[in-house]
């Protein structure tokens, strides 16, 4: 793809918090922000959904917006994609200001929302052709793109069936395929794998990785820490309309307390005996359980079981907990998340 582009960001009032001017020219690969937002706010009536968030996504990278239901993820996507207008804040998408030139932003982006945005009455192929026509692609080119995408998303067989007969996973794939018809430089994916079975989820991840490999910039929202971990270069944690943490997945995980091991016992005597030989982090006399710090590695478990054996304590069951989104929220906000 030959690209000669001069991205000009007009910034008439360089006040505090204004967007940095970025210039991209052919041949030079600089870290250009494909998506940037400063002080984004949105309320619906009395309810403040976004309370001043800042986001930057360098070109060709994935940012995951991680948060529980109601954190404001979808609203953030709506504001960045011109679907809704922010109450305050500055946005630049591929160098364009949606407040001044929404059509230019729309030309650069592709959006796959949380709710299926396919035309159920049209077939998969017709849906893709509809997108090609709206992008004013010549018929021949449009048809070829539609075929390519049907192949790539394993929808070729179902291509001539109405989309409302598709399964959830197929609809999601068609939805994303429709987003790709126009060859967008910046893609927004709102919870792309929510409700998908594990296999479809893997397929979706592979597709997303493929897009970034081609140089596309992606902002995706998710409720799943492992999804952010798998896909994203950077993760921004959204809670109650604010970004409470941002960093690489590794940085973020370093801030989460490690996993723990839970032991359950048959009666209180066994529990008490175990508590004396181990140094539990938590104890529940009613549930007859002990919580121990530990990562659940084989060597940790072996050592633990040996000490219990030596003390002649019987363990009923053992569970290893790895950190999940709840732990992230607990660590970052001090309150339970979802």
């Amino acid at each position, binding site marked *: *793809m*030959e690209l000669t582009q001069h991205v000009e960001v007009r910034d008439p009032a360089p006040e505090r918090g204004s967007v940095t001017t970025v210039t991209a020219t052919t041949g030079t690969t600089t870290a250009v922000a494909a998506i940037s937002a400063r002080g984004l706010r949105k309320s*619906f009536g009395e309810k403040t*959904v976004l309370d001043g968030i800042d986001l930057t996504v360098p070109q060709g990278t994935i940012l995951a917006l991680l948060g529980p239901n109601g954190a404001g993820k*979808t*609203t953030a996507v*709506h504001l960045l*994609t*011109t*679907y*809704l*207008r922010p109450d305050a804040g500055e946005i630049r998408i591929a160098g364009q200001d949606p407040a001044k030139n929404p*059509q230019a932003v*729309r*030309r650069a*982006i592709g*959006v796959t*929302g949380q*709710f*299926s*945005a*396919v*035309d*159920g*009455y*049209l077939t998969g192929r*017709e849906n893709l052709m*509809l997108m090609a*026509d*709206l*992008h*004013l*692609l*010549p018929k021949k*080119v449009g048809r070829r*793109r539609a075929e390519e995408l049907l192949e790539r998303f394993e929808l070729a067989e179902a291509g001539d069936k*109405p989309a409302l007969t598709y399964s959830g996973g197929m609809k999601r794939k068609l939805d994303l395929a*429709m987003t790709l018809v*126009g*060859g967008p430089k910046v893609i927004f994916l709102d919870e792309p794998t929510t409700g998908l079975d594990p296999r479809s989820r893997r397929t979706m991840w592979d597709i997303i990785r493929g897009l970034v490999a*081609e140089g596309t910039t992606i902002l995706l929202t998710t409720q799943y820490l492992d999804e952010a971990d798998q896909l994203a270069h950077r993760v921004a944690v959204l809670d109650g309309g604010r970004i409470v943490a941002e960093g690489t997945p590794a940085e973020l995980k370093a801030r989460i307390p490690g996993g723990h091991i839970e032991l359950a016992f048959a009666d209180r005597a066994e529990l008490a005996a175990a508590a004396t030989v181990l140094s539990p982090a938590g104890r529940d006399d009613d549930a007859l359980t002990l919580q121990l710090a530990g990562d659940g590695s084989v060597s940790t478990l072996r050592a633990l079981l040996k000490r219990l054996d030596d003390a002649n304590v019987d363990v009923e069951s053992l569970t290893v907990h790895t950190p999940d989104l709840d732990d992230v929220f607990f660590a970052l906000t001090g309150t339970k998340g979802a």
Partner: protein
Amino acid sequence: MSTMTMADNAFDTADSRSHALVHARIMLRRNLRHMQRYPSLTLMVTLMPLVFLLLFVYIFGGTLGSGLGGVMPAGLHGGRSAYANYVAPAIIVMAVAAAAQGTAIAVAQDMTEGIIARFRTMAVARSSVLTGHVAGATIQTMAGVVVVTAVAIAVGFRPHANVAEWLAAVGVVLLLTFAVTWLCVGLGLSAKSVETASNSPMFLILLPFLGSGFVPTNSLPVGIRWFAEYQPFTPVNETLRGLLTGTKIGDNLIITIAWCVGTAVLSYVWSRRLYEREPKPR
């Protein structure tokens, strides 16, 4: 992705009028495909006026025709055939109103579809979704009117209009279609549910009954008669009847044009405003 450059270039003037037309045509094709694939709504709104036509000609027509007096031109006095000629224009008007009701339902249904949300984040001419609906509805309505007219002729309607009068009649029907369709697009957009959208245009079906469509207004009691003479469907009916069967038109044509143009313009502005307002968070 060599196609991208092409798409970008083609889009440089996306906001121009010609692209609005291209996009409207694409949306029209989409709507026609919906109608063709799921014809139950089209069938329902076409059958309704046919049922009324047959009911009024074969059940009530004999008696009502005898009561028409000297309303119809010479040679069409009394009986079922006179009434078939009297009521046919009203049935045509009803076919237009029924089709418009179908449009309100189709628009309300469409607004619940996720694909409309997708269009809002694409560089698609804003007006094209609505103009696509109106163009599709106009084609559907005219097809319905042709069917209704053909059946009316089969049951005794004998229009004797010259070419100019036929063209004028088509023009009046088109104008009426345009007005009630835009009105129903607005009703469809403002409806909170598809059920509301199917109920709110009911008055368009009922209004022709409170006018000169089925019985002459001078046979009505005073209060209703006053309403019947001033409501918009009466001049429309009188104009169509005049053009097709040769009754007196008078200033009904000009009143018809005023009502239709006024309704169309106001409804268009209203609909555009409803569509442009910020969508509710989902």
